[in-house]
């Protein structure tokens, strides 16, 4: 679910001449983040539940999901380049959301191999264009100085959308049918598109009129040798490697040990972090603006080894749900920092979305390895060993961030030039 974590924007700060317009753009971004997160809930692990009810074999489901993962990873870089090249990001977002509707409808109406594969590829690619497009619109709207606050707000609305989505889709699957979940998903794309309407006015400024010698877009090689970007991508990959298998592992433990309330407690494990994100994201965005990115990054990363050790030592089902609150702290920090640090590094170079694509690819690789890695340790040793191993990977992420990640917050002077 990491793809829908990103952005948000600062409404309050922009109340200058065109105050009304600013308010409606801000509300548009709020709604967009909420509904997009809502839509994303139906995709993901639920697809395998649905395909199972359609008589799919486990092997075929595995193939379809792998195809989606590969499509999403292979799309990160090209999607970034594409979004950079299109000046009106609302058009990109509109096309991506339409692709989500098509994808959801294909899954609901034609759950046969070819169409499911098409839906997976379509969804994988458009996730890679939508996340960066939302971040780019947030940057245009809020400006570099207020981007942290806006991203905090985006994360708040996205997590509300995730939480409502999990409850709504879960109830729909249980009381109506698995298929109905995808019709509901397709229906939610309508309010998402409506939220876009006020955002069509946003235009990227002409490429920075900066110190002459720069071409319109910085060369790609400059990004790959940018130390801050490479270190941050590595940090994000290590963090995700330690993070993404932790919830499934805890949920699996609950299914085994929590008896009749297991499914409810797993729902709690999914929703509790969303509540935390909704509560603290704006504060974390403000903190990143005022005290710097490094501090927020370290706060977020530090929760991961702590969570792993707590999972490994406390076995009580209710404790697992409470420990998941730490996941919310990490999700808030990382969700804000990915688009924020990408903006610090490449916001005005015309390569913002490509930078986000690079980080997205690193996160995708981490997530893919994580499940296999944790599954292997759990099988070969024990679930507890898997938690501890994930915690150690998380600790590596903390050490790398602490030792090598530079502060990327622009100096206040730079900001005033905007």
């Amino acid at each position, binding site marked *: 679910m990491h793809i829908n974590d990103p952005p948000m924007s600062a409404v309050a700060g922009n109340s200058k001449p065109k105050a009304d317009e600013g308010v409606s753009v801000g509300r548009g971004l709020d709604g967009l983040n909420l509904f997009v997160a809502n839509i994303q809930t139906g995709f*993901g692990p*639920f697809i*395998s539940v649905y395909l*199972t009810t*359609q008589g*799919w074999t486990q092997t075929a489901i595995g193939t379809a999901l792998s195809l989606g993962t590969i499509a999403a990873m292979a799309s990160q870089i090209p999607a970034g380049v594409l979004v950079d090249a299109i000046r009106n990001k609302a058009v990109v977002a509109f096309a991506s959301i339409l692709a989500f509707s098509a994808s959801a409808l294909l899954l609901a109406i034609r759950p046969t191999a070819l169409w499911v594969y098409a839906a997976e590829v379509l969804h994988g690619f458009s996730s890679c264009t939508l996340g960066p497009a939302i971040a780019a619109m947030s940057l245009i709207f809020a400006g570099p100085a207020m981007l942290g606050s806006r991203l905090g707000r985006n994360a708040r609305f996205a997590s509300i959308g995730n939480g409502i989505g999990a409850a709504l*889709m879960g109830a729909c699957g249980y009381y109506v049918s698995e298929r109905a979940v995808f019709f509901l998903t397709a229906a939610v794309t309508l309010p998402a598109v409506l939220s876009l309407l006020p955002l069509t006015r946003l235009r990227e400024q002409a490429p920075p009129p900066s110190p002459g010698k720069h071409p319109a877009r910085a060369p790609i090689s400059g990004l790959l040798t940018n130390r801050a970007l490479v270190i941050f991508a590595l940090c994000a990959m290590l963090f995700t490697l330690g993070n993404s298998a932790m*919830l499934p592992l805890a949920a699996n433990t609950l299914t*085994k040990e929590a008896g009749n309330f297991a499914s409810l407690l797993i729902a709690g494990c999914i929703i509790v972090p969303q509540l935390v994100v909704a509560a603290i994201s704006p504060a974390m965005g403000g903190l990143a603006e005022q005290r710097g990115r490094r501090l927020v990054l370290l706060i977020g990363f530090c929760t991961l080894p702590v969570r792993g050790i707590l999972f490994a030592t406390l076995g009580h089902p209710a404790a697992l749900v409470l420990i998941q609150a730490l996941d919310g702290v990490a999700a808030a920090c990382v969700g804000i920092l990915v688009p924020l640090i990408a903006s610090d590094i490449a916001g005005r170079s015309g390569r913002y979305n490509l930078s986000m694509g690079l980080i997205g690819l690193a996160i995708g690789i981490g997530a893919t390895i994580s499940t296999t890695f944790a599954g292997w340790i759990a099988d070969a040793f024990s679930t507890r060993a898997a938690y501890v191993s994930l915690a150690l990977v998380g600790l590596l992420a903390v050490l790398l961030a602490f030792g090598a990640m530079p502060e990327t917050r622009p100096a206040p002077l730079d900001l005033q030039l905007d």
Partner: protein
Amino acid sequence: MPENVKPLPSSEAAAVLGKKVRGANGEELGPIVDVLVDSDGHPLAAVIDFGGFLGVGSRKVAVDWKALDFTSLGRADTVGLGLNRAQIAAAPEYKPGPPGANVVTTPSSPLPPVDAHK
């Protein structure tokens, strides 16, 4: 119709993959995701994807084929099982491949572990 084709009415046979299994108290346990057969092709166990929420946290558990009741398959599209949630939850997780599966049985249908790869 070609000579080598014979009709098999839905009243006599039905698909089982993806059909939901209901427990002793009517609670939903999860769908059948695989069937383990012996070298004659006779089914010995069904693999159920048990529990979870929105696909997160489910566990695969193998249950004795004889413990399943297929009489409700045509009528309600579900399969019955005389076990409750707690009994399934306590079972070891099913892993494909050697050494084989540990199959959950009802007290009336004892069955030794199945070696799916003999």
